[in-house]
């Protein structure tokens, strides 16, 4: 039926196309509503109804793409339509009028996802002080204290305190009304947001929500919400563990009852009562959220791993400092580990067993099958100094895990896909694949190298950061010169002003890059997304 209608419509439009003014109207009429990919970008222009004609294309041309799911694709083009990736490949047709970004000689990575980032990134430092302020509530801004007698900074808020604040969080997670207010507080002009984009971060965790760092606009910033349920576990507090067990026991027996009730299919029988069933435990067991623990000690990790296996859910464990000693157990539990690679945690000398923080933690956990994510010690971001502004150097943080033996591919995943999974938004972000959002960063070298700078950041198929044009890092190692012969697609690329082009190390950097690639090749999986497009 639809097909028969389509042909006359096509004919009609072809006829009308002669008269340019009328053609437009016709095109609007025949636009199939099932086009599907209606995105915020197109929705914004209310008058431009015509999806096809006004679809916004964005192409990153000629870069070496590291899609974040293994491997590297050399000299390829990523094409996005209305912010969603439609094609990745060598001979991609870039439609006329598409905005293009020339990435020849540069590398393209998925945008980073920062777990536990300061609320100031999304609410700005101009945010009014008050109880409403969303930002920075969960994570104290200045966590680190410097003690003259100690050689290194120590945590001002020891772990015990998190245990205190958790009951509140638990209550919040349980109630259905506790939603992220980020859509009402988001500041797309925050200078911290620009800094985060300069670091390569395109999405951040704010409490239990995943927030996309959109610039210049506030629509569609909330990617996902309430995918994390914070729970406490401490061997020093057995009564707490007991009550947690009781909650999970009751929730799982409730679920069993419901399943049995459904199987029986008896209409007269009442549905099992939800009364007294803990909402958080129920959400975790139903897979609606992930149980999030903050633990580091071996005994706690073991306890959590066994508890999780018993009830069949995958725990997320932040800290996980002694995880390397019980890696196999955590791997069996299918755990996620949110690591802070630089964290210093001394061994408990009362025991002879291995313990304390280890630089190999990430590598050993990953080898055992634990999904490893990386977050910095401190959640702050700023240009003043380095210590305590760790979010500004996320890749360096992951670099420490690589130093301890983690593969580079896994280190990239630890900043992209794994955090996206933890936040429940890996269907949208976390890797460069067809169908996902085009949140990408373009760097002048290997992301994990300390010299590397993010040159461009693209969010939802829009260029939102250009190192040369922002105040922050334009003067530090200006952008390397492009290769002589410009790619045809990049002809109208507007960044012709390369005044600061006397920078030599383009070649040097390439060499570095090659070295690192060969290192990362072990992790190479199947040739990614190009085939997926159909």
């Amino acid at each position, binding site marked *: 039926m639809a097909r028969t209608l389509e042909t006359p419509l096509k004919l009609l439009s072809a006829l009308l196309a002669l008269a340019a003014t009328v053609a437009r109207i016709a095109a609007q009429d025949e636009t199939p509503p099932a086009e599907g990919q209606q995105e915020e970008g197109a929705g914004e222009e209310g008058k431009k109804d015509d999806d096809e004609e006004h679809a916004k294309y964005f192409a990153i041309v000629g870069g070496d793409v590291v899609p974040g799911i293994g491997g590297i694709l050399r000299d390829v083009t990523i094409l996005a339509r209305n912010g969603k990736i439609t094609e990745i490949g060598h001979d991609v047709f870039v439609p006329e009028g598409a905005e293009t970004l020339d990435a020849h000689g540069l590398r393209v990575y998925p945008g980073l996802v920062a777990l536990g980032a300061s609320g100031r990134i999304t609410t700005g*430092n101009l*945010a009014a002080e008050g109880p409403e302020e969303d930002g920075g509530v969960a994570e104290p801004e200045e966590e680190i204290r410097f003690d003259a007698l100690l050689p290194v900074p120590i945590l001002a808020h020891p772990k015990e305190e998190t245990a205190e604040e958790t009951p509140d969080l638990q209550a919040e997670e349980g109630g259905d009304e506790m939603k992220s207010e980020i859509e009402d507080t988001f500041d797309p002009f925050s*200078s911290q947001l620009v800094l985060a984009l300069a670091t390569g971060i395109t999405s951040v965790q704010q409490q239990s929500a995943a927030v996309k760092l959109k610039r210049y606009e506030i629509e569609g910033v909330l990617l996902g919400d309430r995918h994390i349920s914070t729970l406490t576990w401490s061997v020093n507090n057995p009564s707490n563990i007991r009550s947690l067990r009781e909650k999970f026991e009751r929730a799982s027996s409730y679920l069993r009852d419901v399943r049995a009730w459904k199987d029986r299919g008896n209409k007269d029988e009442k549905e099992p009562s939800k009364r007294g069933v803990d909402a958080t435990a129920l959400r975790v067991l139903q897979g609606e959220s992930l149980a999030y623990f903050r633990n580091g000690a071996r005994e706690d990790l073991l306890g959590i791993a066994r508890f999780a296996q018993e009830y069949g859910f995958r725990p997320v464990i932040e800290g996980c400092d002694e995880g390397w000693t019980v890696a196999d157990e955590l791997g069996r539990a299918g755990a996620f580990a949110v690591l802070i690679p630089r964290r210093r945690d001394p061994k408990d000398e009362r025991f002879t067993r291995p313990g304390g923080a280890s630089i190999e933690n990430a590598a050993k956990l990953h080898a055992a099958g634990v999904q490893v994510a990386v977050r910095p010690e401190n959640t702050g971001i700023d240009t003043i100094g380095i210590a305590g502004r760790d979010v500004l150097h996320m890749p360096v943080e992951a670099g420490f895990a690589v130093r301890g033996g983690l593969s580079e591919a896994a280190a990239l995943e630890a900043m992209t896909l794994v955090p996206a999974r933890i936040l429940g938004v890996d269907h949208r972000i976390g890797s460069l694949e067809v169908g996902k959002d085009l949140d990408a960063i373009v760097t002048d070298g290997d992301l994990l190298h300390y010299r590397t700078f993010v040159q461009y950041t693209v969010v939802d198929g829009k260029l939102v950061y250009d190192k040369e044009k922002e105040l922050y890092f334009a003067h530090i190692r200006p952008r390397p010169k492009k290769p002589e012969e410009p790619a045809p697609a990049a002809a109208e690329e507007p960044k012709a002003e390369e005044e600061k082009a006397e920078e030599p190390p383009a070649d040097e950097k390439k060499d570095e890059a090659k070295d690192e690639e060969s290192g990362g090749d072990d992790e190479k999986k199947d040739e990614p997304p190009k085939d997926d497009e159909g």
Partner: protein
Amino acid sequence: MILTSLMLLGALPGGDLWAVRVKRAETVAKGPIEHALILVEDGRILAIGEDLPVERGIPVIEREDWVATPGWINCHTRVGFPRGMSSRTFDPQLSPEIEIDPRNDAWKELLELGVTTVGVYPDGTGIPGQAIVLRTRGDTLEEMLVHKPAYLSIHLQANSSSKNMLREAFSKVDEYEEKVAKEREKWEKEQEKKKSKSKSSKKDEDKDKKEEEKKEEEKKEEKKEDTLATQDEKKEEKASDAFVPPEPDEKVKPFLDLRAGTLEAMVSLSKAADYLHLLDVLEHEEKVHFSVEFPLRNDIDFYEVAPKIGEKKLLVVTQPETTLQPNSIRERNIPAELARAGAKLVLVPRDDSVEGHEEWRTDVGRLIGQGLSREAALAAVTLEAARVLDLGERLGSLEEGKQADIVFWSGDPFEPSTRVEAVMLEGRFVYGEVK
């Protein structure tokens, strides 16, 4: 044309008709006029032009060294009022009227600085009430009060509670409108019943009609109070006697007026993102007219939304000041950027005190030196400010028919050395020696 009107004027019996000749008149609406003659009658400007001939018998005050501008207007002030209440309230019905102290010295001082009209906003944050317009002269509240309400004051910040306050206010209006619609339906049914009855006894039809007409008149009177009354309603109600919509709550009424376009809002913001959140809240309230107000201070990022504001040609109230771009020592002239983007700029003193009003004109002058156009600067302290107060038809420029609120300066008003020579308020000299 002016000549003919003058001839006519001459023919009129004298009384309160006289003229002032000055070196230059800044009309604001029509640019400067050299050697201007301003003809004033009964508190209004009768004519203004270059070297106008004057009928014999009309007294002319010759002041070839003076510069005339419209009376300056500060549309957002609390000079002479207590202030500093920071609690967030939802009292859209309140007005600062009761706080007025006509004996306060500040009024006289402002008048002598050339400020003839002020818009006084209600204290507090949230939605603290409606502003009022005062002339800076008078012994009683009635003498000072020009007009109320001037605008509804709304403070909006990027957080849920602030946004929800505004959202709820409009949802209450929705509720009220629903209620009205229901009552009307009910009432219409009743009317139909009555009609069918009356039709069965067709005798009194003519009488009925007459009655209807009478009632319609009554209804119209009632309608004057009811802002909701639209033409559709009137048509519907012509059928028979008046439908009286229920009286809205005093806290709902201002928002009803906003929606109807009979009241405007002034939204106080504190950063660029607040503006986007304001648009988010008002997404479905296309008819609501508003101006925005924000304090200028270092780190303000308002230039980010200048194009968006300019596109809408919004009235923007701010201070004559340059600021630093966040995280930098780059100076930005945000008022000039806004004016260039197309926004209608309104400038109020940097410091809301009598001293602040003294510095006001030199601050504006400095901003002109830093890139703001002179025309925009003049309009920013007169005509556009009058528009904020909903008095753009009456005040703010030297044009025929407008109220004769005129400040006579010894030279360019933006020069620091310039003094106020005389101030005319509604056609009468209220300051300065004029012989």
